[in-house]
Protein backbone atom coordinates (compact mmCIF):
# COMPACT_ATOMS: atom_id res chain seq x y z
CA UNK A 1 0.00 0.00 0.00
CA UNK A 2 1.21 3.50 -0.79
CA UNK A 3 2.76 5.12 2.31
CA UNK A 4 0.50 8.20 2.40
CA UNK A 5 -2.61 6.01 1.86
CA UNK A 6 -1.51 3.83 4.77
CA UNK A 7 -1.20 6.92 7.00
CA UNK A 8 -4.70 8.08 5.99
CA UNK A 9 -6.17 4.65 6.74
CA UNK A 10 -4.41 4.55 10.11
CA UNK A 11 -5.66 8.06 10.87
CA UNK A 12 -9.24 7.12 10.05
CA UNK A 13 -8.91 4.06 12.26
CA UNK A 14 -7.69 6.18 15.15
CA UNK A 15 -10.50 8.68 14.60
CA UNK A 16 -13.09 5.90 14.61
CA UNK A 17 -11.56 4.55 17.80
CA UNK A 18 -11.67 8.01 19.36
CA UNK A 19 -15.38 8.34 18.55
CA UNK A 20 -16.13 5.33 20.69
CA UNK A 21 -14.20 6.70 23.70
CA UNK A 22 -16.41 6.83 26.76
CA UNK A 23 -15.90 9.89 28.97
CA UNK A 24 -13.79 8.67 31.91
CA UNK A 25 -14.73 11.71 34.01
CA UNK A 26 -18.53 11.71 34.31
CA UNK A 27 -20.46 15.00 34.35
CA UNK A 28 -21.32 14.52 38.04
CA UNK A 29 -17.59 14.12 38.82
CA UNK A 30 -16.67 17.56 37.52
CA UNK A 31 -17.55 19.71 40.53
CA UNK A 32 -13.88 20.36 41.30
CA UNK A 33 -13.13 21.28 37.71
CA UNK A 34 -16.14 23.63 37.78
CA UNK A 35 -14.86 25.48 40.85
CA UNK A 36 -13.93 29.08 39.86
CA UNK A 37 -10.44 28.57 41.28
CA UNK A 38 -9.83 26.16 38.37
CA UNK A 39 -10.60 28.77 35.72
CA UNK A 40 -7.66 29.58 33.44
CA UNK A 41 -8.52 33.25 33.18
CA UNK A 42 -11.35 34.56 35.36
CA UNK A 43 -10.75 38.23 34.65
CA UNK A 44 -10.56 39.09 30.97
CA UNK A 45 -9.40 42.71 31.29
CA UNK A 46 -6.57 41.88 33.68
CA UNK A 47 -5.39 38.92 31.60
CA UNK A 48 -5.38 40.93 28.37
CA UNK A 49 -3.67 43.86 30.12
CA UNK A 50 -0.79 41.71 31.40
CA UNK A 51 -0.43 40.03 28.00
CA UNK A 52 -0.21 43.47 26.39
CA UNK A 53 2.54 44.50 28.84
CA UNK A 54 4.61 41.45 27.95
CA UNK A 55 3.89 41.65 24.20
CA UNK A 56 5.07 45.29 24.15
CA UNK A 57 8.37 44.49 25.87
CA UNK A 58 9.32 41.06 24.56
CA UNK A 59 10.16 39.69 21.14
CA UNK A 60 7.73 36.82 21.44
CA UNK A 61 3.97 36.75 21.08
CA UNK A 62 1.05 34.41 20.55
CA UNK A 63 -0.44 31.21 21.92
CA UNK A 64 -1.83 32.98 24.96
CA UNK A 65 -5.35 33.24 23.62
CA UNK A 66 -5.79 37.02 23.43
CA UNK A 67 -6.35 39.39 20.54
CA UNK A 68 -5.72 43.11 20.51
CA UNK A 69 -3.75 45.97 19.13
CA UNK A 70 -1.47 48.85 19.90
CA UNK A 71 2.21 49.26 19.32
CA UNK A 72 3.54 49.99 22.83
CA UNK A 73 6.15 52.02 20.97
CA UNK A 74 7.17 54.42 23.68
Amino acid at each position, binding site marked *: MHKSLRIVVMGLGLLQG*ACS*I*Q*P*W*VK*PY*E*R*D*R*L*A*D*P*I*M*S*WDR*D*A*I*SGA*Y*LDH*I*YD*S*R*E*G*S*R*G*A*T*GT*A*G*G*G*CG*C*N
Partner: protein
Amino acid sequence: MMPSFRNLARPVATAALLIVGVAGAAVLPDDRADVFYSDYKGGGMDIKGESVLVRKKFSEQFAVEANYFIDKVSGASVDVLSQASVIKDERKQKSVSLDYIRNKTQYNLSYTNSTERDYISNTTHFSLSQDMFGDLTTVTLGFTDSRNKVGENNGTANKPDVAWLGHSESRSFLAGVSQVLTKDLIAGLTFEVITDQGLLSNPYRSIRFVAPGEPLGYGLGSQIYPNTHTSTAVEGRVKYYLPYRAAASASYRYFDDTWGVKAHTAELGYTQPIFSAWLLEGRLRYYTQSHATFYNDLFPFAGSQNFEARDQNLASTTNATIGLKATYAFLPDGWKIFKRGTVTGDVSRIRFKYSDFRDIRDYGIATGDVRPNGGYLPGTEPLYKFDATIYQIYLSMFF
Protein backbone atom coordinates in the same frame (compact mmCIF):
# COMPACT_ATOMS: atom_id res chain seq x y z
CA MET B 1 -24.00 35.82 55.77
CA MET B 2 -20.46 35.85 54.53
CA PRO B 3 -20.18 35.31 50.80
CA SER B 4 -18.28 32.24 49.80
CA PHE B 5 -16.40 31.30 46.69
CA ARG B 6 -17.51 27.73 47.24
CA ASN B 7 -21.14 28.86 47.25
CA LEU B 8 -20.49 30.99 44.23
CA ALA B 9 -19.24 27.90 42.49
CA ARG B 10 -22.63 26.23 42.55
CA PRO B 11 -24.65 28.63 40.39
CA VAL B 12 -21.91 28.77 37.84
CA ALA B 13 -20.98 25.12 37.97
CA THR B 14 -22.33 24.23 34.59
CA ALA B 15 -21.20 27.48 33.05
CA ALA B 16 -17.75 26.90 34.44
CA LEU B 17 -17.41 23.81 32.30
CA LEU B 18 -15.90 26.30 29.91
CA ILE B 19 -12.80 26.07 32.06
CA VAL B 20 -11.90 23.18 29.86
CA GLY B 21 -11.68 25.44 26.85
CA VAL B 22 -8.93 27.55 25.43
CA ALA B 23 -11.88 29.79 24.77
CA GLY B 24 -14.55 27.55 26.30
CA ALA B 25 -17.75 26.19 24.87
CA ALA B 26 -21.13 24.72 25.77
CA VAL B 27 -22.52 27.39 28.13
CA LEU B 28 -22.09 31.14 28.11
CA PRO B 29 -20.60 32.72 31.26
CA ASP B 30 -22.53 35.05 33.60
CA ASP B 31 -23.38 38.61 32.67
CA ARG B 32 -20.89 40.98 34.24
CA ALA B 33 -19.75 44.57 34.43
CA ASP B 34 -16.19 45.53 35.37
CA VAL B 35 -14.45 48.78 36.23
CA PHE B 36 -10.65 48.51 36.09
CA TYR B 37 -7.69 50.74 37.03
CA SER B 38 -4.03 49.99 36.50
CA ASP B 39 -0.71 51.72 36.98
CA TYR B 40 2.58 50.61 35.42
CA LYS B 41 5.75 52.24 36.71
CA GLY B 42 9.17 51.25 35.43
CA GLY B 43 11.94 51.98 32.95
CA GLY B 44 11.21 55.72 33.06
CA MET B 45 7.56 55.26 32.18
CA ASP B 46 4.33 55.75 34.05
CA ILE B 47 1.27 54.28 32.31
CA LYS B 48 -2.13 54.63 33.90
CA GLY B 49 -4.91 52.45 32.52
CA GLU B 50 -8.67 52.67 32.94
CA SER B 51 -11.16 50.23 31.54
CA VAL B 52 -14.85 49.37 31.52
CA LEU B 53 -16.27 46.05 30.39
CA VAL B 54 -19.89 44.97 30.06
CA ARG B 55 -20.97 41.49 29.08
CA LYS B 56 -24.64 40.64 28.52
CA LYS B 57 -26.47 37.51 27.43
CA PHE B 58 -29.47 38.10 25.22
CA SER B 59 -30.45 34.43 25.28
CA GLU B 60 -28.83 31.18 26.36
CA GLN B 61 -27.17 31.14 22.96
CA PHE B 62 -26.08 34.71 22.30
CA ALA B 63 -23.94 37.19 24.26
CA VAL B 64 -22.36 40.56 23.55
CA GLU B 65 -19.31 42.03 25.26
CA ALA B 66 -18.06 45.61 24.96
CA ASN B 67 -14.79 46.90 26.36
CA TYR B 68 -13.18 50.32 26.48
CA PHE B 69 -9.59 50.72 27.61
CA ILE B 70 -7.51 53.88 27.85
CA ASP B 71 -3.78 53.97 28.57
CA LYS B 72 -2.25 57.30 29.55
CA VAL B 73 1.50 57.26 29.00
CA SER B 74 3.99 59.70 30.43
CA GLY B 75 7.75 59.38 30.32
CA ALA B 76 9.66 57.36 27.75
CA SER B 77 11.72 54.22 27.62
CA VAL B 78 15.51 54.28 27.76
CA ASP B 79 16.25 54.37 24.05
CA VAL B 80 13.72 57.11 23.49
CA LEU B 81 15.27 59.09 26.35
CA SER B 82 18.70 58.80 24.79
CA GLN B 83 17.57 60.84 21.80
CA ALA B 84 14.24 62.55 22.48
CA SER B 85 12.34 64.50 25.07
CA VAL B 86 9.87 63.06 27.57
CA ILE B 87 6.58 62.20 25.92
CA LYS B 88 2.92 62.06 26.82
CA ASP B 89 0.44 59.99 24.89
CA GLU B 90 -2.82 58.09 25.13
CA ARG B 91 -3.94 54.79 23.70
CA LYS B 92 -7.68 54.23 23.42
CA GLN B 93 -8.88 50.73 22.70
CA LYS B 94 -12.49 49.86 21.91
CA SER B 95 -13.67 46.36 21.30
CA VAL B 96 -16.93 44.53 20.79
CA SER B 97 -17.25 40.76 20.89
CA LEU B 98 -20.15 38.48 19.96
CA ASP B 99 -20.54 34.90 21.22
CA TYR B 100 -22.98 32.42 19.77
CA ILE B 101 -23.52 28.83 20.87
CA ARG B 102 -25.15 26.14 18.81
CA ASN B 103 -25.18 22.65 20.29
CA LYS B 104 -21.59 21.95 21.32
CA THR B 105 -20.02 24.66 19.20
CA GLN B 106 -19.23 28.20 20.34
CA TYR B 107 -18.52 30.91 17.77
CA ASN B 108 -16.80 34.18 18.64
CA LEU B 109 -16.44 37.24 16.46
CA SER B 110 -14.72 40.35 17.77
CA TYR B 111 -13.52 43.68 16.49
CA THR B 112 -10.94 45.89 18.21
CA ASN B 113 -9.80 49.40 17.37
CA SER B 114 -6.72 50.78 19.10
CA THR B 115 -5.85 54.42 18.48
CA GLU B 116 -2.79 56.38 19.51
CA ARG B 117 -1.76 59.72 18.10
CA ASP B 118 0.83 57.97 15.94
CA TYR B 119 -0.51 54.41 15.62
CA ILE B 120 -3.91 53.06 14.59
CA SER B 121 -4.76 49.38 14.66
CA ASN B 122 -7.94 47.57 13.59
CA THR B 123 -8.23 43.91 14.51
CA THR B 124 -10.87 41.37 13.55
CA HIS B 125 -10.92 38.00 15.25
CA PHE B 126 -12.97 34.88 14.64
CA SER B 127 -12.79 31.62 16.55
CA LEU B 128 -14.84 28.51 17.06
CA SER B 129 -14.65 25.97 19.85
CA GLN B 130 -16.09 22.48 19.69
CA ASP B 131 -16.72 20.21 22.67
CA MET B 132 -16.27 16.53 21.94
CA PHE B 133 -15.63 13.12 23.46
CA GLY B 134 -18.18 13.49 26.26
CA ASP B 135 -17.21 17.15 26.74
CA LEU B 136 -13.78 16.15 28.01
CA THR B 137 -12.09 17.72 25.01
CA THR B 138 -12.48 21.18 23.52
CA VAL B 139 -10.88 22.05 20.22
CA THR B 140 -10.49 25.71 19.25
CA LEU B 141 -9.58 27.23 15.91
CA GLY B 142 -9.01 30.96 15.57
CA PHE B 143 -8.12 33.52 12.93
CA THR B 144 -7.10 37.13 13.54
CA ASP B 145 -6.54 39.87 11.00
CA SER B 146 -4.91 43.13 12.05
CA ARG B 147 -4.35 46.27 9.92
CA ASN B 148 -2.08 48.94 11.33
CA LYS B 149 -1.16 52.48 10.37
CA VAL B 150 2.25 53.56 11.65
CA GLY B 151 3.29 57.14 12.26
CA GLU B 152 5.87 59.24 14.04
CA ASN B 153 5.29 62.36 16.10
CA ASN B 154 7.91 64.90 15.11
CA GLY B 155 6.31 67.60 17.23
CA THR B 156 5.99 67.82 20.97
CA ALA B 157 3.62 66.24 23.48
CA ASN B 158 1.35 69.30 23.46
CA LYS B 159 1.86 70.27 19.84
CA PRO B 160 1.98 67.02 17.88
CA ASP B 161 3.13 66.85 14.29
CA VAL B 162 2.50 63.30 13.15
CA ALA B 163 3.98 62.00 9.92
CA TRP B 164 2.34 58.76 8.75
CA LEU B 165 5.16 56.50 7.64
CA GLY B 166 3.39 53.39 6.38
CA HIS B 167 1.20 50.40 7.10
CA SER B 168 1.55 46.90 8.37
CA GLU B 169 -0.72 43.87 8.32
CA SER B 170 -0.77 40.88 10.57
CA ARG B 171 -2.60 37.56 10.37
CA SER B 172 -2.77 34.94 13.05
CA PHE B 173 -3.81 31.29 12.85
CA LEU B 174 -4.50 29.55 16.15
CA ALA B 175 -5.33 25.95 17.03
CA GLY B 176 -5.86 24.80 20.57
CA VAL B 177 -7.00 21.73 22.42
CA SER B 178 -8.05 21.50 26.03
CA GLN B 179 -8.45 18.20 27.79
CA VAL B 180 -9.95 17.05 31.07
CA LEU B 181 -7.48 14.41 32.21
CA THR B 182 -8.87 13.43 35.62
CA LYS B 183 -11.43 14.74 38.11
CA ASP B 184 -8.71 17.11 39.37
CA LEU B 185 -6.55 17.84 36.36
CA ILE B 186 -7.00 19.75 33.14
CA ALA B 187 -4.45 20.45 30.42
CA GLY B 188 -4.28 22.65 27.35
CA LEU B 189 -2.11 22.96 24.26
CA THR B 190 -2.20 26.03 21.99
CA PHE B 191 -0.36 26.55 18.72
CA GLU B 192 -0.29 29.92 16.96
CA VAL B 193 1.38 31.17 13.80
CA ILE B 194 1.45 34.92 13.22
CA THR B 195 2.66 36.48 10.01
CA ASP B 196 3.19 40.20 9.39
CA GLN B 197 4.19 42.37 6.50
CA GLY B 198 4.78 46.07 5.97
CA LEU B 199 6.51 48.64 8.16
CA LEU B 200 7.45 46.58 11.21
CA SER B 201 10.07 48.71 12.94
CA ASN B 202 9.47 51.13 15.80
CA PRO B 203 10.23 54.61 14.40
CA TYR B 204 11.23 55.92 17.84
CA ARG B 205 14.12 53.49 18.18
CA SER B 206 17.47 53.93 16.42
CA ILE B 207 20.55 51.96 15.62
CA ARG B 208 23.87 53.00 17.10
CA PHE B 209 27.15 52.78 15.19
CA VAL B 210 30.79 53.57 15.92
CA ALA B 211 31.66 57.10 14.85
CA PRO B 212 34.96 58.27 16.40
CA GLY B 213 34.47 61.81 15.13
CA GLU B 214 31.22 62.28 17.05
CA PRO B 215 31.31 63.84 20.56
CA LEU B 216 29.89 60.67 22.11
CA GLY B 217 31.98 58.32 20.03
CA TYR B 218 28.93 56.92 18.27
CA GLY B 219 26.22 58.02 15.87
CA LEU B 220 22.52 57.18 15.64
CA GLY B 221 20.63 56.12 12.53
CA SER B 222 17.35 54.66 11.34
CA GLN B 223 16.53 51.04 11.94
CA ILE B 224 15.97 48.92 8.83
CA TYR B 225 13.79 45.84 9.31
CA PRO B 226 12.73 43.13 6.90
CA ASN B 227 9.17 43.83 5.77
CA THR B 228 7.99 40.31 6.55
CA HIS B 229 7.95 38.40 9.81
CA THR B 230 6.50 35.03 10.74
CA SER B 231 6.45 33.56 14.23
CA THR B 232 5.39 30.27 15.74
CA ALA B 233 4.45 29.79 19.37
CA VAL B 234 3.28 26.70 21.18
CA GLU B 235 2.12 26.67 24.78
CA GLY B 236 1.27 23.77 27.05
CA ARG B 237 -0.39 24.19 30.44
CA VAL B 238 -1.87 22.17 33.25
CA LYS B 239 -3.99 23.03 36.27
CA TYR B 240 -4.50 20.76 39.24
CA TYR B 241 -7.10 20.87 42.01
CA LEU B 242 -5.39 20.14 45.33
CA PRO B 243 -7.17 17.96 47.93
CA TYR B 244 -7.63 20.85 50.42
CA ARG B 245 -9.35 23.12 47.88
CA ALA B 246 -6.61 25.07 46.21
CA ALA B 247 -5.34 25.08 42.64
CA ALA B 248 -1.83 24.88 41.22
CA SER B 249 -0.97 25.60 37.61
CA ALA B 250 2.06 25.45 35.35
CA SER B 251 2.67 26.49 31.77
CA TYR B 252 5.48 26.57 29.27
CA ARG B 253 5.65 28.37 25.92
CA TYR B 254 8.22 28.00 23.16
CA PHE B 255 8.58 30.76 20.59
CA ASP B 256 10.52 30.88 17.34
CA ASP B 257 10.49 33.40 14.49
CA THR B 258 12.01 34.14 11.10
CA TRP B 259 14.10 36.94 12.62
CA GLY B 260 16.10 34.46 14.67
CA VAL B 261 14.45 35.11 18.04
CA LYS B 262 13.91 32.02 20.17
CA ALA B 263 12.14 32.39 23.50
CA HIS B 264 11.03 30.31 26.46
CA THR B 265 8.33 31.32 28.95
CA ALA B 266 7.60 29.35 32.11
CA GLU B 267 4.89 30.21 34.60
CA LEU B 268 3.67 28.80 37.91
CA GLY B 269 0.46 29.79 39.64
CA TYR B 270 -1.22 29.01 42.92
CA THR B 271 -4.76 29.87 44.09
CA GLN B 272 -5.86 29.57 47.71
CA PRO B 273 -9.32 30.47 49.04
CA ILE B 274 -9.29 31.70 52.66
CA PHE B 275 -11.96 32.87 55.14
CA SER B 276 -14.59 31.78 52.59
CA ALA B 277 -14.86 35.22 50.99
CA TRP B 278 -11.24 35.70 49.99
CA LEU B 279 -9.18 34.26 47.19
CA LEU B 280 -5.40 34.68 47.26
CA GLU B 281 -3.28 33.99 44.22
CA GLY B 282 0.45 33.94 43.57
CA ARG B 283 2.22 33.89 40.24
CA LEU B 284 5.84 33.38 39.14
CA ARG B 285 6.90 33.88 35.53
CA TYR B 286 10.29 33.57 33.90
CA TYR B 287 11.10 34.61 30.35
CA THR B 288 14.25 34.36 28.26
CA GLN B 289 14.93 35.15 24.61
CA SER B 290 17.86 35.23 22.18
CA HIS B 291 18.44 38.28 20.00
CA ALA B 292 17.33 38.71 16.40
CA THR B 293 19.97 37.97 13.77
CA PHE B 294 20.03 41.61 12.63
CA TYR B 295 20.15 43.08 16.14
CA ASN B 296 23.29 44.77 17.42
CA ASP B 297 23.82 47.20 20.28
CA LEU B 298 26.65 48.91 18.38
CA PHE B 299 27.18 48.41 14.67
CA PRO B 300 30.74 48.87 13.33
CA PHE B 301 29.52 51.53 10.88
CA ALA B 302 26.24 52.79 9.43
CA GLY B 303 24.86 50.54 6.72
CA SER B 304 27.11 47.63 7.70
CA GLN B 305 24.20 45.19 7.19
CA ASN B 306 21.11 45.05 4.99
CA PHE B 307 18.91 44.97 8.08
CA GLU B 308 19.84 46.76 11.28
CA ALA B 309 17.98 46.95 14.58
CA ARG B 310 18.67 48.19 18.08
CA ASP B 311 15.22 47.74 19.54
CA GLN B 312 15.45 46.34 23.06
CA ASN B 313 12.55 43.98 22.26
CA LEU B 314 14.89 42.17 19.85
CA ALA B 315 17.90 42.00 22.22
CA SER B 316 18.97 38.98 24.28
CA THR B 317 17.01 39.41 27.46
CA THR B 318 15.46 37.77 30.47
CA ASN B 319 12.75 38.93 32.81
CA ALA B 320 11.22 37.53 35.96
CA THR B 321 7.82 38.33 37.44
CA ILE B 322 6.35 37.81 40.85
CA GLY B 323 2.66 38.59 41.23
CA LEU B 324 0.20 38.57 44.13
CA LYS B 325 -3.54 38.95 43.78
CA ALA B 326 -6.36 39.10 46.32
CA THR B 327 -10.08 38.91 45.49
CA TYR B 328 -12.88 39.63 47.94
CA ALA B 329 -16.40 38.39 47.20
CA PHE B 330 -19.36 40.40 48.49
CA LEU B 331 -23.16 40.57 48.12
CA PRO B 332 -23.64 36.79 48.30
CA ASP B 333 -27.40 37.26 48.36
CA GLY B 334 -27.41 39.82 45.59
CA TRP B 335 -28.60 43.44 45.49
CA LYS B 336 -31.03 44.99 43.00
CA ILE B 337 -30.15 43.50 39.63
CA PHE B 338 -26.80 42.14 40.83
CA LYS B 339 -26.31 38.52 41.90
CA ARG B 340 -22.91 39.07 43.49
CA GLY B 341 -19.75 41.14 43.28
CA THR B 342 -15.99 40.89 43.65
CA VAL B 343 -13.21 43.41 44.17
CA THR B 344 -9.65 42.49 43.23
CA GLY B 345 -6.23 43.96 43.92
CA ASP B 346 -3.19 42.74 42.01
CA VAL B 347 0.48 43.74 42.35
CA SER B 348 3.19 42.43 40.03
CA ARG B 349 6.88 43.16 40.00
CA ILE B 350 8.98 42.48 36.89
CA ARG B 351 12.77 42.63 36.67
CA PHE B 352 14.07 43.09 33.12
CA LYS B 353 17.72 42.36 32.31
CA TYR B 354 19.44 42.70 28.94
CA SER B 355 22.55 40.82 27.83
CA ASP B 356 23.42 42.94 24.80
CA PHE B 357 21.49 46.18 25.16
CA ARG B 358 23.49 48.90 26.89
CA ASP B 359 22.32 51.84 28.94
CA ILE B 360 23.53 54.89 27.01
CA ARG B 361 21.51 57.57 28.77
CA ASP B 362 24.36 58.98 30.85
CA TYR B 363 27.35 56.98 29.85
CA GLY B 364 28.02 57.57 26.20
CA ILE B 365 31.06 59.69 26.85
CA ALA B 366 34.17 59.60 24.70
CA THR B 367 37.53 58.80 26.25
CA GLY B 368 38.95 61.33 28.69
CA ASP B 369 35.65 63.05 29.45
CA VAL B 370 34.91 61.82 32.94
CA ARG B 371 31.37 62.41 34.19
CA PRO B 372 29.81 61.42 37.54
CA ASN B 373 28.67 58.15 36.04
CA GLY B 374 32.10 57.40 34.64
CA GLY B 375 33.55 57.69 31.16
CA TYR B 376 32.70 54.73 28.98
CA LEU B 377 33.83 53.99 25.51
CA PRO B 378 30.96 53.09 23.17
CA GLY B 379 30.12 49.43 23.65
CA THR B 380 31.41 49.26 27.23
CA GLU B 381 28.50 51.01 28.97
CA PRO B 382 26.67 49.03 31.67
CA LEU B 383 24.06 46.59 30.41
CA TYR B 384 20.55 47.91 30.79
CA LYS B 385 18.21 46.61 33.45
CA PHE B 386 15.15 47.95 35.19
CA ASP B 387 12.32 46.98 37.51
CA ALA B 388 8.66 47.60 36.81
CA THR B 389 5.75 47.51 39.24
CA ILE B 390 2.20 47.00 38.04
CA TYR B 391 -0.82 47.76 40.21
CA GLN B 392 -4.32 46.68 39.25
CA ILE B 393 -7.57 47.15 41.09
CA TYR B 394 -10.98 46.26 39.70
CA LEU B 395 -14.58 45.83 40.67
CA SER B 396 -16.66 43.10 39.02
CA MET B 397 -20.43 42.94 39.36
CA PHE B 398 -22.25 39.84 38.13
CA PHE B 399 -25.90 40.04 37.13
